[in-house]
């Protein structure tokens, strides 16, 4: 069995509070259904945690990070008090919006590597229904902790050396791009004192260069798709996503996805999450498209669009215009009819 120790702590709201309440905590026995649930979280963390993160350096530029230090102390000596230090750090970052949570520290070994999964279950309320042959009883339960698909958070660290490894991990945060657009920094930035392993500029540039180069080589249909996605990409400003999600969000066809993938250096980079940087994107690539009431669509690099297509106002009142361009035909395709 790879899981060797599990500790759990009830983490209250402590942000801005002078003296946070002392956190209890307990050691979880490595048996029974409860352990099976946690063991499952431990095993599945490799798939569930899909955001590459790296601990931040100290403000004076040194290789020192307060959260990493606590994690290393815990890994060196995985005791209830050492785990509590991690829970207390989380409590100091927890505000009303994050609410009460149940924290699990699940440690083990896999081959020559040590592995630690830190998982936070948010609190919720529930109704317990108990039915027997004659009656149904219901009971309202507070402080129920669930692995919510909307607010579950976890992080997984692996490494061989406590001296040189454990700088990077993989996290999951279901609140990272909430519907209100307000990005949650609570788990990754504040508690874990980490950043995405790839910077916004590097991740965005990688995507922009791949789109630009794929469009240059693609046929007219794929070129049109990629140009449309490029035009709409400005809406992604500040969003956290990976290239997989970019493809899904703009509904790219399998051909367009393949064209984009062929420009990536390796198969892993499409899964790496980054924060979209509009300025960087526009510095590499920007397409402008114009759709006409006649059914025609014009697409061209934004910087040269007005040079490529000459616009002439035909009827100002009816807003009718004529676009024209001149050159040799380098590619032409027919789209199959429906």
């Amino acid at each position, binding site marked *: 069995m790879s899981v060797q120790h599990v500790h759990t702590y009830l983490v209250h709201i402590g942000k801005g509070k002078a003296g946070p309440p002392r956190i209890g905590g307990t050691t979880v026995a490595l048996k029974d259904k409860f352990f099976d649930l946690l063991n499952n979280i431990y095993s599945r963390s490799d798939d569930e945690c899909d955001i590459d993160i790296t601990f931040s*350096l100290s403000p004076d530029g040194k290789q020192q990070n307060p959260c990493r230090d606590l994690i290393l102390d815990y890994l060196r000596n995985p005791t209830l008090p050492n785990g509590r230090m991690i829970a207390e750090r989380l409590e100091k970052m927890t505000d009303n919006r994050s609410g009460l949570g149940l924290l699990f520290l699940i440690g083990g070994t896999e081959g020559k590597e040590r592995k630690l999964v830190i998982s936070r279950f948010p609190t919720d309320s529930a109704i317990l229904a108990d039915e027997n042959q004659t009656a149904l009883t219901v009971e309202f339960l507070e402080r129920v902790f669930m692995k919510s698909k909307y607010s579950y958070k976890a992080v997984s660290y692996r490494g061989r050396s406590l001296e*040189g490894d454990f700088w990077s991990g993989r996290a999951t945060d279901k609140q990272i791009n909430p519907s209100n657009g307000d990005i949650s920094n609570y788990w990754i930035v504040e508690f874990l004192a980490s950043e995405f392993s790839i910077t916004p500029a590097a991740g965005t*540039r990688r995507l922009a260069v791949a789109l630009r180069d794929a469009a240059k080589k693609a046929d007219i249909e794929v070129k049109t798709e990629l140009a449309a996605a490029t035009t709409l990409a400005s809406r992604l400003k500040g969003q956290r996503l990976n290239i997989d999600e970019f493809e899904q969000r703009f509904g790219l066809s399998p051909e367009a996805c393949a064209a984009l993938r062929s420009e990536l250096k390796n198969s892993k980079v499409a899964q790496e999450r980054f924060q979209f940087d509009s300025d960087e994107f526009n510095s590499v690539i920007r397409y402008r498209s114009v759709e006409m009431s006649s059914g025609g669509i014009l697409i061209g690099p934004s910087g040269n669009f007005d040079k490529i297509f000459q616009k002439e106002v035909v009827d100002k009142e009816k807003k009718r215009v004529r676009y024209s361009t001149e050159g040799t035909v380098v590619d032409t395709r027919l789209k199959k009819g429906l």
Partner: protein
Amino acid sequence: MSLQSEYKNRYDKVLTRLAEAIAEQVQGYLRSEPRIDRVTGRAKDIASFMDKARREENGKKKYSEPLSQIQDQIGVRIITFYTSDVTRLHDIVVKYFRPIEIKNHVPESEKEFSYFGRHFILKVPTDAISDDMDRTLVPEFFELQIKTLFQHAWSEAEHDLGYKPGTTPLTSEQKRRLAFTSAQAWGADHIFEELFRERHP
């Protein structure tokens, strides 16, 4: 497998190619930047790695797990013209790479002259790792240095004279002469920076 064999395996299979790929990526980010003399990438040679791995501090081995702890197995260097360029390039480096350390190397005392340079320990970018590389052999970090031409020239000569494996330690008088050359390089950098500012106000 001995440490040397392990490192040689890593060096042969991954490090040399990875150093080239990272240097190429850095060059790409700096393509439109002025006053870049060159960008170089190198994998730390096996003798230098072993020499570093054997180092002691306070009577104990400095590195208990050298393969994880020695973070300059890959080194990239950006050579630029003026000291103000170092600051400008610093901003570009942290824009595109995730650092876990940034250090401005200057002598400890104002009365000393020795090594000057800006060093970063940066996360190896995923883009530089090709699918055929064994990821277990890929180091997590690499070192990037930004130096002026004079800082670069001084550090290369000083390393050649004093720090190559197997060389005898420098005498006190030799160290003083090296310090003198460092002071000259420092002075040259300052005069060039002043001239640059005067010519490009």
